[in-house]
């Protein structure tokens, strides 16, 4: 784990779960898996606080536990999962584009709570949707349930590992921690529930009191009213599936930019057909025959079979090898190459930083080196059509940043410097890792800057919140416009401007964080898939 990753994890935990959880997470990340009492000793927190923090972290799958042979339980932080917190908005937005508002809220609730049972999730989402509907209307559970089932069928959500169900004999002492497990095939099976009901709207004033009192009465009457039918079955978001979706999106847009809209639609169809049949980490989709592709094309695209075949041939012949031809049965079978290969998709997108940081000419040199692998100084100048002096300067700057490296090729066995070739080359993996490290550092810096801005203006923010609260209560009691205006005047003009500036800056920083996270995704996927290559 690099320092940059550690710092970023730390900031993410602190922002979303508070400082106590941050302390515990930090300790686990920096020192490795440890049992509870060592953790309490290292963090200096109260044992109860540490236990609470661990419960929160385990609930959100950020920490896992393992029973050691000697009987104690060790906790280990999952750094890569913590970094995913950055990507939550993207997951939620994707769910919205695919499954609409119920889908969006389901994914959001599951992310906010770590894992939930289906009945709980459906109830919460129905309530939230009912809030936003017009008076008198409520959201029925059935619609939310059906969206839930669709999410499970397309593997966007999955079941959590379950507590072992086999009853133990009373003699054997219970293990210190349950061993949770789930079979692959059970992961997406939705329990047969008949969830009947409608979303409840939060009533105002008097009715709220009744509702509260009823709930209190229920609580006092002995805890849980009745165990829900799907007790023990919890669901969580399947992040890998979302990543697969993002990758497909990137592929499709790359095809679209390289060729035309129709070919990108063809590739999109092929990918959609193989969504659930492709194992994660596979380099190619399953072969699809062109007949199948033809049948699955979206309704709007009425291109003939011949035209489709032509498109497929074009795609297969393309040097970037998006699509490969794997056979001739059924009119020709094709696969989509989804590995971020050496000649793969993300490279033009992946290294825009060389363009923005060093300039577009540097980017040109960089792309040249990527394609030609090894070039001498003179050749670089010639191919890139850049004057020698500038080319030298750019190369050295990239060299000092470790984006390019020098390779020596001796002409003579004694490696005499005057008789050796010095070739510039790009070591793609090293460059990718270096860029990724920089990305983590950037996001951490952005977050710190944002927190700094909020801290600097804390007094002003609190004041504006108070004024808003006063305004709201006054409006509820029906004050006149003059009185409202007077209260608004409590925030002076310059202060208002300061607030505006603050809001704009914070929004800009937030948007930048989202942007950098996109780059992080591409780089991480690239590194991960390249390392998996046999």
């Amino acid at each position, binding site marked *: 784990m690099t320092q940059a990753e550690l710092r970023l994890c730390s900031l993410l935990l602190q922002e979303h779960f508070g400082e106590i959880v941050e302390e515990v997470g930090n300790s686990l990340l920096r020192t490795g898996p440890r049992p509870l009492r060592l953790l309490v000793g290292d963090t200096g927190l109260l044992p109860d606080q540490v236990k*609470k923090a661990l419960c929160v972290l385990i609930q959100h799958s950020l920490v896992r536990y393992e029973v050691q042979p000697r009987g104690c339980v060790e906790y280990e932080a999952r750094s890569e999962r913590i970094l995913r917190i950055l990507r*939550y908005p993207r997951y939620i937005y994707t769910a919205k584009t695919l499954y609409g508002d119920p889908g969006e809220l389901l994914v959001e609730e599951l992310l906010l709570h770590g894992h939930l049972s289906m009945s709980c999730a459906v109830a919460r989402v129905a309530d939230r949707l009912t809030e936003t509907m017009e008076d008198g209307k409520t959201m029925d559970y059935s619609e939310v349930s059906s969206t839930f089932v669709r999410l499970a069928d397309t593997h966007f959500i999955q079941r959590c590992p379950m507590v072992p169900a086999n009853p133990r004999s009373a003699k054997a002492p219970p293990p*210190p921690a349950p061993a949770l497990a789930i079979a692959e095939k059970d992961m997406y099976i939705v329990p047969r529930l008949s969830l009947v009901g409608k979303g409840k709207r939060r009533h105002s004033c008097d009715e709220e009191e009744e509702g509260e009192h009823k709930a209190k*009465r229920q609580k006092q009457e002995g805890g849980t009213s009745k165990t829900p039918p799907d007790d023990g079955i919890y669901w969580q978001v399947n992040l890998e599936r979302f990543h697969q979706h993002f990758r497909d999106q990137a592929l499709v847009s790359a095809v679209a930019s390289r060729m035309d809209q129709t070919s990108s639609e063809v590739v999109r169809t092929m990918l959609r057909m193989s969504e659930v049949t492709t194992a994660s980490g596979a380099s190619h989709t399953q072969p699809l025959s062109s007949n199948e592709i033809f049948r699955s094309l979206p309704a709007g695209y009425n291109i003939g079979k011949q035209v489709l075949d032509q498109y497929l041939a074009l795609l297969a012949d393309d040097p970037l090898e998006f699509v490969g031809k794997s056979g001739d049965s059924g009119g020709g079978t094709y696969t989509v190459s989804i590995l971020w290969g050496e000649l793969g998709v993300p490279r033009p997108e992946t290294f825009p930083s060389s363009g*923005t940081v060093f300039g577009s000419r540097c980017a040109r040199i960089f792309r040249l080196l990527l394609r030609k692998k090894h070039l001498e100084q003179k050749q670089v100048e010639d191919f890139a059509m850049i004057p020698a002096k500038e080319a030298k300067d750019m190369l050295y700057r990239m060299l000092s940043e470790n984006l390019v490296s020098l390779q020596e090729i001796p002409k003579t066995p004694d490696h005499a410097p005057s008789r050796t070739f010095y070739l510039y080359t790009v070591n793609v993996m090293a460059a990718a890792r270096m860029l990724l490290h920089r990305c983590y550092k950037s996001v951490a810096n952005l977050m710190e800057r944002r927190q700094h801005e909020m801290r600097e203006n804390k007094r002003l923010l609190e004041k504006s919140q108070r004024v808003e609260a006063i305004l709201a209560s006054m409006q509820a009691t029906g004050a006149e416009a003059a009185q409202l205006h007077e209260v608004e005047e409590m925030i002076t003009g310059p202060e208002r401007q300061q607030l505006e500036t603050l809001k704009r800056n914070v929004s800009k920083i937030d948007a930048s964080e*989202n942007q950098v996270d996109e780059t992080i995704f591409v780089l991480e996927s690239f590194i991960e898939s390249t390392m998996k290559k046999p």
Partner: protein
Amino acid sequence: GRGRGRGRGQMTFNVEAVGIGKGDSLPPPTLQPSPLFPALERRAAPLPGGEEGEYMLALKQELRRAMRGLPYFVKPGAPRRDIERYSDKYQLSSPLDSAIDWNPDWRRLPRELKIQVRRLRKGRTAPLVPKQHVTLDKEETIKKLESLEKKEEEVTSEEEEEKEEEEEGKEEEEEEYDEEEHEEETDYVLSYFDNGESFGPDSDDNGDEAVY
């Protein structure tokens, strides 16, 4: 050694191969660490806007705000004051115990993590239930009236409530009705009590002015 001082600087390899030609001046040696904020040579590309970007931005800010309110956001306990202050009685303190505010499924967690919840008030559930309706109506009204901030009625309802509390003699729902509990000791309404701490900076400003 040989070559020292003669020529600009002799390297073991042919510098021309790397591109430094004869007569070119090398940059001066660096004598200090690089500046903290190096000058930006070119502006960064503008952020992509658009509906998607805007929506994700709103989502991000909303998520941050929401997570602060969830029980998973572990707040440190209230710091112990060195001296007991008068205003402590009137401040609504957060629950000091370290009990978990949400109910995890304990079957899925290691046993050592289970915190024993202090059962202060749970024992009283039985006698409370039959009398719920009567008292709760009154306190419901009190709550409603309080939120509308009608002073006179609050005072009268408080008196009634005080009598009832004395009659029944039990603490009901401390967490929910902390305000009333405090108030039963005084005639003053808590929400009107302002201990002046929140107006710190303003009062400081006034203090700077000379007093004639």
